[in-house]
């Protein structure tokens, strides 16, 4: 089956959790702060030890090298992090940053000179440039103003449609969750439930 399938996922005392996101579908994930939404994304990306099976397009994550798995899964952390001084050093190819509101000169600038919100958008550009098969988004618009939040939503929508990508979108904003996703899940200490 194509898409993302999760069966019996257990991590840090949570679970077993199961969910399924078909190719091209966006599922929003809501839940109180500290309930473990970020931990769920980290477990799916295999950044934290976990039990259970995660499959992407029928391939079990444990059967391929971890770095290949992560390059397909495409997780965007809530806070962006950078390892070199210049922005350009973080991209293997120069991508078009215009849809995010940056000119081509941005690549030569130092990362520290961008604001938190700008870095958040640039981290999204960096992720999409690596063309992951699926997207796991941890509050991708949390530090953005409404105009830029709208831009990011449009870019993610376009990516999902063009690549037929399954998307798991963590959000605190009910209106956004309803807007971007075809299904909204809520994570509680008891497990995942369909939000109404």
């Amino acid at each position, binding site marked *: 089956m194509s898409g993302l399938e999760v069966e019996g996922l257990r991590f840090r005392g949570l679970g077993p959790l199961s969910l399924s996101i078909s190719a091209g579908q966006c599922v929003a994930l809501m839940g109180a702060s500290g309930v473990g939404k970020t931990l769920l994304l980290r477990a799916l*990306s*295999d*950044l*934290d*030890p976990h039990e259970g099976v995660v499959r992407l397009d029928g391939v079990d994550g444990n059967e391929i*090298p*971890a*770095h*290949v798995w*992560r*390059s*397909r899964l*495409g*997780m*965007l*952390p809530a*806070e*962006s*992090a*950078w*390892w*070199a001084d210049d922005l350009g050093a973080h991209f293997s190819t120069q991508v078009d940053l215009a849809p995010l509101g940056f000119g081509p000169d941005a690549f030569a600038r130092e990362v520290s000179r961008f604001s938190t919100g700008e870095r958040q958008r640039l*981290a999204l550009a*960096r*992720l999409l440039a*690596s063309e*992951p098969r699926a997207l796991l988004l941890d509050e991708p618009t949390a530090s953005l103003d409404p105009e830029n939040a709208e831009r990011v939503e449009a870019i993610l929508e376009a990516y999902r449609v063009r690549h037929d990508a399954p998307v798991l979108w963590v959000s605190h904003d009910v209106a956004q969750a309803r807007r971007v996703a075809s299904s909204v899940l809520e994570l509680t200490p008891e497990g995942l439930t369909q939000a109404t």
Partner: protein
Amino acid sequence: MISLTPLDLVLASVLVLALALTSHFAALGLARTLVVVSVRTVVQLLLVGLVLRQLFETTRVSLLLLVVGIMLIVAAREVRSRQARPLAGAWGYSVGALSMFVSSFSVTALALLVVIDATPWYLPQYAIPLLGMLLGNTMSGVSLGMSRFTESAYREKAAIEARLLLGHTAQAATSHLRVEAVRTGLVPIVNSMAAAGIVSLPGMMTGQILAGSPPVEAVKYQILIMFLIASGTGFGVLVSVWLSATRLFDERERLRLDRLDG
């Protein structure tokens, strides 16, 4: 060669005592430490002198192995104790010990076999001082390199995980930190090579000249030692940083900071 009398050493110790007294009255809080390390210096070096005399007179392989084994263990403990966040458990000692072993011991063996050409090649009179010089310098480099690496890995967890999430391998995800750590470990030896003879007369050469060797002989030995130290330190730092970087990830290329102490 002019022999030192015990009185000469007493005169030198008066200077250290004067420093300790000054430190006491200036409330630097170093007086006690100064006295303790001075006494340690005297006792440790006297003991080493006795052991070396025994070793040089007999050339017993078992005694030689015992001495170099102790040197390596003490150096490994020292490497670990100089780090704020050493690798947890036995790894904290063994990574340092292994890196120093492969670099210092192989460089010493090479120098003894090829350059110095004594018979037998492990003649303690050459082997022990050479290994001591190499181990001492490699130890500084290895502890600097490893502590720089483990601390920056701890501080830059987010950046390392960002690279992992983009599909970088565990080795690639720390490449920027490993380069920095290796450079840090090599700075002291690179500096001392650059300044050798101009700013400072290296300790070994000074000692030889004071003991009566012709300066050019002392210089030749010093050049040999410098090159050996540079290569020993360099390879030791490379191995130790690489091993630390490998240890910080598990089989699924997850960053495992729980494998650090502190």
